[in-house]
């Protein structure tokens, strides 16, 4: 007698069902991951004149006018050079008069001991132990724009400023921990952030030519 075939289950419509679901998800899908430049705004103060007083040499003024031109400290500048200018401003390797002042970590620690700020004392003690007594810049980048500045230009400049800080952090991380900043542990990142804080001031908008 011939072997009897086991009747096959018809799976032909399975594909149809799967296709239906597939098309639904294809349509409903948005693939974008949300990413962007994170920034912190200064708190709202009623009295605008009550601004923080900062020495002139410690502020790097970056202006973008309505024609999307960039000026650093009053000089027209190519955006491509901004990253290097910012890095030099922060580090000030030659201790130039017109670039940002630095303060030794140990000096800061003394101040915090005087003020009895436990949290900061602990942080700076760790900083000196792990990274050493480094110079911490007092520099602030003040980014100002006109109302007519294009948003894409503004983001481009923001991006360069963040990039300069990120590069400084990476360099320090490589030197001390032999790792990229993003691959360091949270504790290590915290210390590096102490040395290179992201100090970009989102100043009040101004109108200028």
């Amino acid at each position: 007698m011939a072997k009897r075939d086991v009747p096959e289950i018809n799976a032909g419509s399975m594909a149809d069902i799967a296709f239906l679901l597939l098309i639904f998800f294809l349509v409903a899908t948005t693939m974008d991951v949300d990413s962007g430049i994170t920034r912190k705004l200064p708190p709202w103060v009623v009295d605008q004149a009550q601004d923080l007083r900062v020495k002139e040499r410690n502020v790097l003024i970056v202006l973008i006018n309505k024609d999307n031109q960039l000026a650093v400290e009053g000089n027209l500048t190519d955006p491509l050079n901004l990253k290097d200018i910012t890095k030099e401003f922060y580090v000030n390797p030659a201790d130039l008069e017109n670039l940002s002042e630095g303060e030794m970590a140990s000096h800061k620690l003394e101040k915090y001991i005087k003020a009895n700020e436990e949290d900061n004392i602990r942080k700076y003690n760790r900083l000196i132990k792990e990274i050493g007594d480094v110079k911490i810049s007092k520099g602030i980048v003040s980014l100002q724009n006109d109302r007519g500045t294009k948003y894409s230009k503004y983001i481009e400049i923001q991006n360069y400023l963040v990039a300069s800080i990120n590069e400084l952090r990476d360099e320090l991380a490589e030197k001390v921990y032999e790792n990229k900043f993003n691959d360091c542990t949270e504790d290590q990142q915290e210390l590096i952030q102490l040395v290179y804080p992201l100090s970009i001031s989102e100043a009040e908008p101004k109108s200028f030519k």
Partner: protein
Amino acid sequence: MSKFSKNKKKGASAISTASLPDIVFMILFFFMVTTTMKETELKIKIKLPQATEVKKLENKSMVSYIYIGKPIPALQELYGSEPKIQLNDQISELTDIYNYVMAERGAVAEELQPQMTTSLKVDEETEMGIVTDLKQELRKAQALKINYSSRKMVKKK
């Protein structure tokens, strides 16, 4: 003789499609896993600017979105062609932002409120004026953590 003639059927035998569902299911699962549903319908056109130093936004339930851009052509008669702010599903005014932030904040447990981020999705052609006004409103509402949403661009070395 009959044996030979029996095996010789006309035409090629059908290709088995039994594995087709498997393939389709594989694609299906991929899309199911990567999918995030669209939350709001945009009434304005937005092309995000590009940046290299972007960070991923984590914890999406802590993020509220504000969109700025020109209304889509179908709605330009109604709203004009100047850049507008959209909150949730509506074109809104600057003065609505304070209430919007407060409403978003109210939906979150109190101890988590400092983690809240506002994601600004702004069209790259927009002029900064409206963005600056928006930032001032956010400062008034104490929503200080912001994120300039941008597309990731590959770093040029």
